[in-house]
């Protein structure tokens, strides 16, 4: 499958799963698990940073349109798309891994722990930014902390499960940089 088709399918599927399955999960403290950000996690290394941000904006805007309050998810998605290259730079196991492999995965990030750190930091960032925007309008501080923590934990759990269920075979393309 070409990169384009693959990403379009991912985009549509993740938005549908997020809105029609996960948004209907009612946990206490109004905690919602977020899994649609996997689209941003799985974007290929070689997309330019501008393109990454535009795609992230479209992703967030699509979910916002379903939820009828534009801006919130778009803002959080743009933030993690902006931060993503910095985290990848820090976490990459050795120089050139981003050209040897197509996209971030357990293998290309060099194991389970680095990948979890990568996903964890971005999920935490996404959730705290999102809930902060909501808390600015109403809500109190402790609720914000509790919501962010629990949402991040549950999202991360789902992300790990998704990662193990749909393991993406990453070909080692070349060892020349």
């Amino acid at each position, binding site marked *: 499958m070409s990169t384009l088709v693959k990403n379009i399918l991912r985009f549509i599927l993740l938005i549908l799963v997020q809105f029609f399955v996960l948004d209907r999960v009612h946990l206490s403290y*109004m905690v919602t698990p977020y899994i649609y950000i996997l689209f941003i996690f799985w974007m290929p290394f070689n997309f330019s940073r501008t393109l990454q941000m535009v795609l992230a904006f479209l992703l967030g805007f699509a979910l916002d*349109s379903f*939820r009828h309050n534009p*801006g919130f998810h778009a803002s959080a998605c743009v933030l993690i798309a902006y931060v993503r290259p910095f985290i990848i730079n820090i976490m990459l196991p050795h120089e050139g891994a981003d050209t040897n492999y197509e996209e971030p995965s357990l293998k290309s990030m060099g194991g389970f722990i680095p990948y979890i750190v990568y996903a964890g930091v971005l999920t935490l960032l996404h959730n705290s930014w999102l809930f902060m925007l909501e808390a600015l309008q109403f809500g109190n501080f402790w609720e914000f902390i509790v919501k962010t923590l629990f949402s991040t934990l549950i999202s991360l759990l789902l992300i790990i499960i998704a990662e193990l269920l749909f393991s993406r075979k990453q070909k080692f393309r070349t060892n020349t940089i």
Partner: protein
Amino acid sequence: MRNIFLFIRRYFNFIFFLLLQVFCIYLIVHYNRYHNAIASVYVNEVTGRVNEQYNKVDYYLQLKKANQQLVKENERLRNTAKADFETPDTSVKVVTDSIPYDTLGNHRKWAYQAAKVVSNSVTSQSNFIVLGRGAAQQLKKDEGVIDTNNGVVGIVTDVSDNFAVVMSMLHKDSRINALLKNDPQGGGTIVWDGKEPNYLSMINVRKSAKVAKGDTVVTSGITTTFPYGLMIGTVEEVLPEKSSNNYIIKIKSTANFYNLQHVYAIDNYQREEINKLVEKAKSKINN
């Protein structure tokens, strides 16, 4: 000049990031004011179609519950039929020689319009409900929405050709005027604190109001949105507000927001005239 271009080129990503964020914040802040924008109507049509497909499956799974609700409503309506009441012989017969209600609807104030819920949410802090009936089917903005058991659900905020978006009572900006049925002196405003679906708060109730657990809270009828006496919920807990001389009353809503399928929108035939009059009065005072 050259330096400016170099600067922009060097920090292009960061500037682009800031621009996108500013645009997002703009959307967040201005949504309520500009929700009639053409783009939003177009987006509503698209998401409405997707939701309709999903709802076909979801509705089938909830048929049993929907049936129960409709049976209950039928029972209530049958009990209000004229044949169920018998007036004793001693009563005075009232004869009106003109009909107070005519088929043209000249005297009619409220009209109920049935609508199917296409999409609904309870998990976010600003929940909306989408109805599969829109401007082409005579649904208008600012109509009140109730469920099949006469429990208030929300207010229509946005209408496209075939769909309407309802601001649910479970929305941080939702404000609905209410009264305590037992003590009409105790009025207040219904808001949602964003913590638990199906539980609302009634604020600004003065402390002299007589209120007990289980009391009924109804719409006040002083706005053009809802007629008097539609049930909002029952009192669950009465708390004094620390900073003022008012109560905050916790209310369990009559409408069950988890499984809404059929609702009624309430059209007020006098709204336009009233709004016009208010506008006129306002412009007079301002000038």
